[in-house]
């Protein structure tokens, strides 16, 4: 049972590592948030569940933590992205389309 827990925690750590690697490699704020959100959700989920399997009496608490992380992680990334958009941080040069202006204009109409 402990081995299973260690393997699952290991998978989680691997995904957390990939998320950090993505934050280093990708070109601008928005793409970095993509890596930051997805890999940390999965990574945290697996790490916490793995700990729950190693220590069975913590399992339900760990599951609760994992569910809360799954619900709150998108919200925090959304807040960061919206703030950076509002403060006018530009997209990187590889971007192909930006419909923000169209979206903003609708508000005034």
């Amino acid at each position, binding site marked *: 049972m402990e081995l299973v827990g260690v393997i699952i925690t290991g998978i989680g750590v691997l*995904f957390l590592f*990939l998320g950090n690697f993505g934050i280093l490699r*990708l070109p601008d704020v928005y793409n970095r*948030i993509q890596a930051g959100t997805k*890999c940390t959700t999965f990574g945290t989920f697996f790490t916490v569940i793995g700990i729950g399997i190693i220590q069975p009496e913590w399992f339900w608490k760990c599951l*609760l933590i994992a569910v809360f992380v799954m619900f709150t992680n998108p919200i925090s990334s959304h807040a960061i992205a919206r703030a950076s958009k509002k403060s006018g941080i530009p997209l990187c040069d590889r*971007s192909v389309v*930006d419909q923000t202006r169209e979206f903003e204009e609708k508000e005034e109409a």
Partner: protein
Amino acid sequence: MGDNNPHPILRVKNCLYLFIFLLSIWIILTNTFQYEELLTGILISFVLTLILNKNYQKLGLPPIGLKRLVYFIIYILVLLKEIIKANFDVAYRVLHPKMPIKPGIVIIKTELKQDIAKILLANSITLTPGTFTLDIKNDELLIHWIYVRSEEKGESTKKIGKKFEKYLKVVFA
């Protein structure tokens, strides 16, 4: 948003759901069924229910029914599948030497009415491969897409939102 002044029986029912939800969190956290612990939990859940009831009503959660529950479970399963796909997708893009990204910001439309349903949709879009929600306004969502496949509104709505929307529409009908 739901009705501001729902039927009294419905209100009591909503209170009961909130109470059961809070109490189950308490039981998970304390991890015992001892008499004193349970009593404290019931007391605290009851007080919190009274305080939070008004905010909870504002969310406009629908009454629980069998069909809704089944669709909600299907929605959760689809979401889990998408989360797993999303992680391998990001891992692939990050590890690929040339980084196959084509980022952009697009608008999609939603047919959902309630705020809570829109929050769920926006959160699920954030957790699915290559997309996350920047902003919501009325029935439109601003989406950042790491690999833009279509710039036209209808087309991108179909590609990003539809797979969740069809379940959420039944849950919040």
